[in-house]
């Protein structure tokens, strides 16, 4: 059987696939390979005629990029149809058997297109030896292109002249069709696309306000949310109450309320970096009472700065304008495994008893070093 679990007797339920209980698990499945979604049939069966065991394997196969490129040369009118009969062979819903292409279809495709491949040093796929396919008109059924079968696949653009070019060439600024029709009507609206204000860039409507800037001036991500005064917009423009911002737990569906509020180590004086935490859109110092080495390890690791090389408890600087905001170590901080430093700190009504704040320096993790292996130093260019 192809899959790891075989439906027992190919019916309901499933048993572990044991070589001894060979079931003929042949079955039809709907075609999902985008390249062949416009065939006159929509059920297929695996393995196919190129040795692929699943549509997933066909999707990433090199034949699935070779054939669409070859179709552009116009070497044979029904090449795409023939390629799909190999990639996603027709499955007869009654017999559950594959229906092969006819030998003449295979011979025509090979005779007209094999030499084109030779020019670029490629061989015709050797799995598709034509003698394995039946002659049309014999007692075995086989496939021939019917009238009206589409010469281009859904991954192509059809030129005015009938040629097929890859869809990525449509309006790419280079004429690819022999009649240049791939560069006609390239306005955004003519292609049901949205034009970025102030530029000629066209984007799909689905890209507007999706959290990823696509237009040159990022206008596709502007004015996408209408949050209340006490809310902040997520990257995907949902609104979250500002008190939930940077509290070490995800509230935005894209987690962006926890992205840029990492515990900021700001260089405050010679002795190192005073730890400040950004929470509900304000900056807090961390009271040194109850601080532990494990929290220093967490802080440096969370910032991707390696490990703490020195930790000190600095007296608060008197006379700095504005009220000091303090965060304290949560009494049960060690029970909150897997969460960020922010989730292990809490606000308290009183100020910091010791009036000392945490300051630490992290030793950046060694990265990008190659050991001088084999006893001899890395070769230097002469």
């Amino acid at each position, binding site marked *: 059987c192809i899959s790891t679990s075989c439906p027992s007797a190919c019916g309901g339920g499933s048993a572990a696939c044991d070589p001894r209980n060979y079931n003929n698990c042949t079955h039809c499945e709907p075609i999902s390979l985008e390249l062949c979604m416009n065939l006159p049939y929509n059920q297929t069966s695996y393995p196919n005629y190129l040795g692929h065991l699943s549509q997933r394997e066909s999707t990433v196969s090199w034949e699935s990029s070779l054939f669409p490129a070859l179709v552009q040369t116009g070497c044979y009118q029904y090449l795409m149809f023939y390629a799909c009969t190999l990639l996603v062979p027709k499955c007869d819903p009654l017999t559950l058997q594959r229906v092969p292409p006819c030998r003449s279809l295979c011979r025509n495709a090979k005779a007209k297109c094999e030499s084109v491949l030779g020019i670029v040093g490629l061989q015709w796929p050797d799995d598709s030896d034509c003698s394995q396919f039946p002659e049309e008109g014999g007692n075995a059924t086989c496939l021939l292109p019917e009238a009206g079968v589409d010469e281009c696949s859904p991954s192509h653009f059809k030129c005015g002249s009938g040629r097929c070019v890859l869809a990525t*060439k449509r309006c790419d600024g280079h004429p*690819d069709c022999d009649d240049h029709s791939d560069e006609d009507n390239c306005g955004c609206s003519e292609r049901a696309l949205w034009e970025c204000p102030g530029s000629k860039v066209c984007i799909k409507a689905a890209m507007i306000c999706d959290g990823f800037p696509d237009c040159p001036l990022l206008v596709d991500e502007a004015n996408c949310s209408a949050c209340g005064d006490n809310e902040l917009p997520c990257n995907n423009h949902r609104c979250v109450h500002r008190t939930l911002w940077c509290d*070490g737990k995800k509230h935005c569906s894209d987690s962006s309320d*926890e992205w840029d509020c990492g515990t900021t180590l700001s260089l405050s004086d010679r002795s190192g970096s005073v730890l400040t935490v950004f929470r509900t859109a304000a900056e807090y110092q961390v009271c040194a009472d109850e601080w532990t080495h494990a929290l220093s390890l967490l802080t440096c690791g969370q910032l991707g700065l390696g490990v703490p090389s020195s930790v000190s408890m600095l007296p608060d600087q008197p006379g700095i304008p504005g009220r000091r905001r303090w965060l304290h170590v949560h009494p049960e901080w060690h029970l909150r495994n897997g969460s960020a430093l922010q989730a292990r700190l809490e606000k308290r009504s009183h100020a910091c008893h010791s009036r000392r704040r945490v300051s630490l320096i992290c030793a950046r993790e060694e*990265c990008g070093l190659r*050991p001088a292996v084999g006893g001899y130093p890395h070769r230097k260019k002469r």
Partner: protein
Amino acid sequence: ILGGRVSRRGAWPWQCSLQSGQSGHVCGCRTLRESADLWTVVLGLNNLDHPGVHRQSRTVRSIIVHPRYNRAVVDYDISVVQLDSETDFVGPVCLPEPGQLPSPDSYCYITGWGHMGNRMPFKLQEGEVRIISMSQCQSYFDMKTITPRMLCAGYEAGTVDSCMGDSGGPLVCEEVGGRWTLFGLTSWGSVCFSKVLGPGVYSNVTHFTAWIRQQIYIHTYLSD
């Protein structure tokens, strides 16, 4: 890797091999849209056939494919793979700082166990490639668009290039002080064992540094 050579044991401590089922090494690749439990990540490896004492394998806890990954034009071709536990034998490579790009015509290295043009190797291969500017690169590929998420490297004649089985693998450049930075992930190119000319195309890691750091932070520190 076409036109490369066998690498010394341990020379590229960040290289891994993604393996699935009985088929062994598949690539450093990214046809990772499938479920995580299909994959085993093997580290500390040089010779696929004689793994050696430093070999470590890990299963995959999660695979984060870039939400904008586009298979048709191979854009945003990057995933973050979270292992089920730490490893001791992996030497981390440096991530580029935002905006930090390798300069055109500088030389960098690609590595992998992919196709060599005539066979698949057992020993990790390395090849030195030259960074190619975007405009020059676009001239090689009229069939596809080179986007800012892509980086080109190699040679006009394709003499040294990555190939099937190398995808997802690293393109690294040496910086001042002997540090190596990951600027590219093997992504796509012309059919590498044909006479079709052209360089290889890599995911431009600099474009994704912030996204990578976000994913690491979210999946390490944010309680679900």
